[in-house]
């Protein structure tokens, strides 16, 4: 199953592929001129203070979009992707975007690099429910943004 999410949900430092957009025509054609087409890769670079707008990179052009607009663009994550945006399924933990303290905290929850985890059904906007080594735990978005995983083949 492919997980399709809105672009505004993607945290910094993630990559994703454009699936489709629900934008008004004029805006869509403007973005097309900048290389924003289905099938192309976007990198989420930086969010402004207070979280909006966000700078995105497509090809070598950096542009900034508001959340109102980016939420109309549907994307699928490119792996490694942060745990916060992947859909249900089995994944392998690849790395953490964070310092040593963060890594220790995550390790103490039983999540280690190279480990297999299963993302369980959870409601959108809630904490993420995962199963690690047979144990169910809930992880907040802030943390999940920094745990990068890859699909288990």
């Amino acid at each position, binding site marked *: 199953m492919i997980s399709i999410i809105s672009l505004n949900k993607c945290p910094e430092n993630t990559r994703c592929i454009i699936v489709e957009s629900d934008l008004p025509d004029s805006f869509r054609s403007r973005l097309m001129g900048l*290389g924003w087409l289905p099938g192309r890769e976007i990198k989420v670079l930086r969010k402004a203070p207070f979280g909006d707008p966000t700078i995105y990179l497509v090809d070598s052009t950096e542009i900034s979009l508001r959340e109102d607009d980016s939420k109309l663009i549907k994307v699928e994550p490119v792996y490694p992707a942060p745990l916060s945006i992947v859909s249900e399924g089995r994944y392998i933990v690849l790395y953490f975007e964070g310092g040593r303290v963060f890594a220790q905290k995550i390790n103490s929850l039983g999540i280690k690099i190279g480990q297999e985890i299963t993302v369980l059904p959870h409601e959108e906007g809630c904490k993420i429910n995962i199963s690690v080594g047979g144990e169910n735990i809930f992880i907040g978005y802030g943390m999940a943004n920094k745990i990068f995983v890859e699909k288990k083949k």
Partner: protein
Amino acid sequence: MKEITIALIGNPNVGKTSFFNALTGSHQYVANWPGVTVEKKTGFFKWKDYNVKVVDLPGIYTLNARSIDERIARDFLINERPDLVFNVVDGTNLKRNLYLTIQVIETGVKTILILNQMDEVKNLDIKIDTRELSKRLGIPVIETIATKSVDIDSIMRSALADSSRQIRYEIYPKELEDIFSSVSREIQNDENLKKYPSRWLAISVIEGDNFAKGLVQNRLVVPQEKDVSLKIAKARYDFIDSVVKQIEQRPKEIWTITDALDHVFTHKILGIPIFISIMWMIFEFTFSISTPFSDLLSTGFSDLGNYAHSIPGWAGSLIGDGLISGVGSVLTFVPLIFFLFFSMGILEDSGYMSRAAFLIDRLMHRFKLSGRAFIPLLLGFGCNASAIMTTRTLEGEKERLISILINPFTTCSARLPIYAVISAAFFGAFGGFAIFSIYMISIAVALSMAIIFNFIMKNKETTPLIIEMPRYKTPTAKGLAIYTWSRGKHFLKKAGGIILGATVVVWLLSNLPFNAPIQDSLAAQMGKAIAPIFKPLGFDWHVTLALIFGGIAKEVTVTTLGTFANGNLEQFLGTILNPVSAYALMLFALLYIPCVATQATMKMETGSYKWPIFSVVWSLSLAYAVTFLFEKIAYLVI
């Protein structure tokens, strides 16, 4: 002599205007943010036996234009049919730039690719096979560094060389090509449409471009297919990808200086404090560095005035009171205004403008303005008239109108002499703070007006924010000199023209009838007739008259008072104002009516007299109300 017309077309901020300056030897204003050029600019040069006319067009990403500046570029290309198009592209960003190139080639006009910013290409360690690129596109490609210099001779030679090379490459899949050629044939057979480039028109109509649809009306049967515009765009990008893959080598992502700077300047926590400190630094720098120069000029003019008074008769008075004390009182601020433009030049040339717009977009959003609308507002601190022109980049009609109407509330450089004179006379060490407070009020009023106008006009649309982040550049001395001079000379021209004229009129009015004491002069009679209206604000007839003449150009407020002052403006102000009414005058000068030049620009940009008239009535009422309230409250407190 043969006449040819060359159009410069390209994405925003790729260096078209620099290239234009290099070709024609002109000094057009360039800066490092997308959308600097919003109107077409024409220049000329001679080469061999050619008279070449060069037209610099506003930057566009595609020919599917929406906003006014984009339409200007597209219309010129389609309707005026230049002999040659120089498509200026940013060599570091070929993929994005070539999209427009493909569209331009489709219009059938003879196109030359100007591969610009080759110095940056080298810095970023990118390698481009220019010859192969030229082969793949079927058009001449010329490398340039427009900010340094360009080799006009070799450019013109390859541009005019007979390159009847057939363009053989295929971009679109066969099923699309078939539709294009059938529609294109119909266009060629249509009396009214055959004057347009048929292939371009066919593709644009099928893409669903509104302008093209408008041209063909119902004359053609256009096959409707789902998502065809997407297929067309995709085909173009696939083609570009294959070309770029073949001709370009770029190193794997490297951490550039721009990345490093952005890490700090757009930082989540540090970004906004840095923005505020930069604004404060600009303010401080402008004032403290210009003060000694201004003081020097001021002393000079006062000595000159004393000397002029020794000329007997009316000539001494005209020169002493009118010209030197009047116009001189404004010329004193030439250093201030030049340093202000110099600082703004650094801001614009470095690439920080786009980052600032990004940082405070959230705030602008709250005031129902798009991040793009921030740039005209910031430029308003230089000159409202030219800032209003830059609103052309905004798509929504209402949003654009609102941006035009709030712009005069950002306090332009012409109002600075008023604040500076008053602060020096009344607020001493707190002068800088008094002026800074006026700037803050200016921003607050402009933003509040945005909310009010949005409410009145029921504006819901805002231009979606797409700001391109240009690379940071170190502003060059030459660039800054051109920038500061091209904007500052406007001030000098005004001083020698409209300000001088207005000052002579004021002098005449205050000296007629001859030999009458100033209290009985025409000026006094006029001022006294109107003064009752301004009495509640604590302004006497001198100030009243100065404000009325200040409507012509804001600096005239100062020159008029200077004419009355008999050589010592600060002392004179002390006799007609107190600190409260002095600050009230600063407030009033900030808010009341846009100057004549700004009104004319409003008329031009909105196409109707309604809006400048509305703006005058609105801002005058607002200025009166705010000033009145301020004084009432101030006297209660003190």
